[in-house]
């Protein structure tokens, strides 16, 4: 069994939490258990009164963040899209207090998100981007049995009355060894949050001001971020960007074979793309060969900075984890890296990664990950990351290169691996994870759920 410290990303602090944990939804602070089992259920509201009744009935079953570090029981999370808030009959002035990008929705922001080409909303799966997704409920648990029970609880609240309809149910669950759809251990390196009651593990950096992740608290600039009105609706809430990716496992494996003659060479290329071996061991600490024991140790697998790797000879500048958290890397432009972190809850779906899958049919197998990206400014943060850190390389000195794992690649894309005496530049990078849909949800506090249920 993996330790509790792994799942909460730290050790319990001796000081009491300063956040109103009983008001905040658990998923904001509570990582997936390991292993994990769950499902995302998407709903449409056809009748405002039925929608409010659904929320009233479901609210007592939504987990708060009280004792969030204890993930032994299954829990439910609820998010409501802008179309959902409209469908619930939210007053006009309240609707108008939400940020523009949230109001128009993720599909309408495709240009700002760089969701074009194969990621264009015109290729998305239904019901994403149609304006019909009003509510998203996610169940998380550490066993299949608990997952079933949690979903049964949710089902009881909507079954049997018209006006709320299930659009889609997406099951998810950990792959063997807690790997993602490309065979890497994932979920390492979440931002530490001030006042949450947990001391971060080594390498996780100083805790970031809670206001960056939860509305109503001071952010990094010392003031709270703008909040939807009224206060009871906004406070202790946040936003989540829900993005569903399908992994093109065949294309990824073909790429590795084209760039490595032996298993060892291929695994090194795979590690350079991410910055970690598939075991989770970072290349800064295990530069030449994998160290699975290091990868599995939460106290050590994230305990590094880039002070000894200023030229990217261990972790290339363009590697996925160096882009997503540059730590102390000298960036080409003035950047406060603490402003661009997201809490992410990755949920893997479909069959496990298969290292021998090589065909184009393998690319079409529904298999991948759904990410919940959580932040008090999730829309702005995701747009920033997509524009600057994922689909560009200028910020970290690699020109037009894009994130090799989640970037939307152009024809002829390259990936540079710094090396002595000369760098190696790999060609043939493709879009290995294709976006299949996405939505923005507001994640209300416990009091906000009651307020919504009581709307007239």
């Amino acid at each position: 069994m993996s330790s509790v410290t792994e799942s909460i990303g730290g050790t319990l602090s001796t000081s009491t939490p300063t956040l109103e944990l009983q008001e905040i939804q658990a998923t904001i602070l509570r990582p997936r258990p390991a292993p994990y089992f769950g499902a995302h259920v998407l709903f449409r509201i056809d009748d405002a009164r039925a929608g409010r009744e659904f929320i009233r009935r479901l609210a007592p079953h939504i987990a708060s963040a009280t004792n969030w570090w204890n993930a032994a029981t299954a829990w439910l999370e609820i998010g409501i899209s802008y179309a959902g808030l409209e469908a619930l009959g939210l007053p006009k002035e309240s609707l108008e207090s939400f940020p523009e990008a949230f109001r128009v929705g993720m599909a309408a922001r495709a240009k700002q998100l760089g969701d074009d080409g194969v990621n264009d909303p015109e290729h998305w799966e239904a019901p994403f981007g149609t304006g019909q997704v009003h509510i998203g409920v996610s169940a998380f648990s550490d066993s299949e049995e608990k997952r079933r029970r949690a979903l049964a609880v949710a089902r009881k609240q909507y079954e049997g009355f018209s006006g709320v309809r299930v659009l889609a149910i997406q099951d998810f669950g950990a792959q063997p060894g807690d790997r993602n759809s490309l065979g890497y251990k994932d979920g390492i390196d979440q931002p530490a949050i001030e006042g949450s009651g947990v001391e971060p593990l080594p390498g996780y950096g100083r805790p970031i001001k809670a206001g960056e992740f939860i509305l109503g608290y001071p952010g990094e600039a010392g003031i709270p971020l703008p909040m939807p009105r009224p206060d009871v609706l906004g406070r202790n809430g946040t936003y989540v960007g829900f993005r569903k990716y399908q992994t093109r496992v065949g294309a990824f494996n073909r790429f590795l074979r084209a760039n490595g003659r032996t298993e060892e060479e291929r695994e090194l290329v795979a590690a350079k793309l991410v910055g970690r071996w598939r075991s989770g061991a970072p290349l800064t600490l295990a530069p030449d060969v994998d160290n699975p024991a290091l990868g599995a140790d939460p106290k050590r697998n994230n305990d590094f900075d880039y002070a000894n790797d200023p030229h990217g000879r261990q972790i290339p500048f363009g590697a996925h984890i160096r882009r997503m958290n540059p730590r102390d890397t000298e960036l080409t432009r003035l950047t406060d890296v603490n402003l661009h972190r997201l809490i992410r809850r990755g949920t893997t779906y479909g069959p496990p990664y298969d290292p021998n899958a090589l065909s184009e049919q393998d690319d079409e197998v529904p298999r991948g990950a759904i990410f919940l990206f959580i932040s008090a400014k999730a829309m702005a943060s995701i747009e920033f990351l997509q524009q600057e850190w994922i689909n560009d390389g200028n910020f970290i000195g690699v020109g037009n290169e894009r994130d090799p794992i989640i970037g939307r690649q152009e024809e002829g894309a390259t990936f540079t691996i710094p090396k002595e005496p000369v760098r190696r530049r790999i060609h043939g990078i493709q879009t290995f994870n294709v976006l299949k849909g996405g939505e923005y949800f507001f994640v209300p506090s416990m009091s906000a759920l009651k307020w919504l249920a009581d709307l007239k």
Partner: protein
Amino acid sequence: MATQTRTPTPTQSESARKGKEKIQQLRELFADAPELGRKALDNVIQELTAQATQPAPEALESAGRAGVRLGKVSELTIVVPFAPGGAKRLRAFLQMIGGNLSSGATRVGTLHDMRFVFLENDTKLLFATAYDGEWDAYIDDFATKIPDFLDIIDSAWEGWPGIRSPHAKDYLAKHQVAAEGWFVAHPDLTVAETARLKRNGKALDEFLDKISA
């Protein structure tokens, strides 16, 4: 041998027609221009017609909320009234650093150039810069990394809410005037990319020196 004549594609003939319309409009506007202006237009009218009937080389795009972009480079031009005493304070600050902003501006990493021009007897400021990407993506970073330098400069401006204010972006966008015409020699080169090419050029020279020695 390829044939000497080409049939223009529909888009070519379309841009030719639009180009001719623009030339005609220009002629009409110049009808009451001073003699030397009219003459100058006559002298280059053939060249201009040739230019105008070709498809545009690269269109100016919007640089986000305000301003225009060419390739990767954007322009930002602000005209703003000075706050009382603002001109005096800003001039003293700029003179203290010899009018050269390189130390602070280099740190930002995206600025190609930047200028402060005092207008109309020190009542208004023209601030103009060319920079990479979109400024508003990084404004929060400025607010936590260099708030004081920005507020020293911008508090010279009437009504500046402060860089940490949620209204800072609105203030800047409100006073921004988009350029009607603009030229960038290398629209595909960011400041960072230029630095990288300089390093590569130096390394290539060293390499060539070694193999030719």
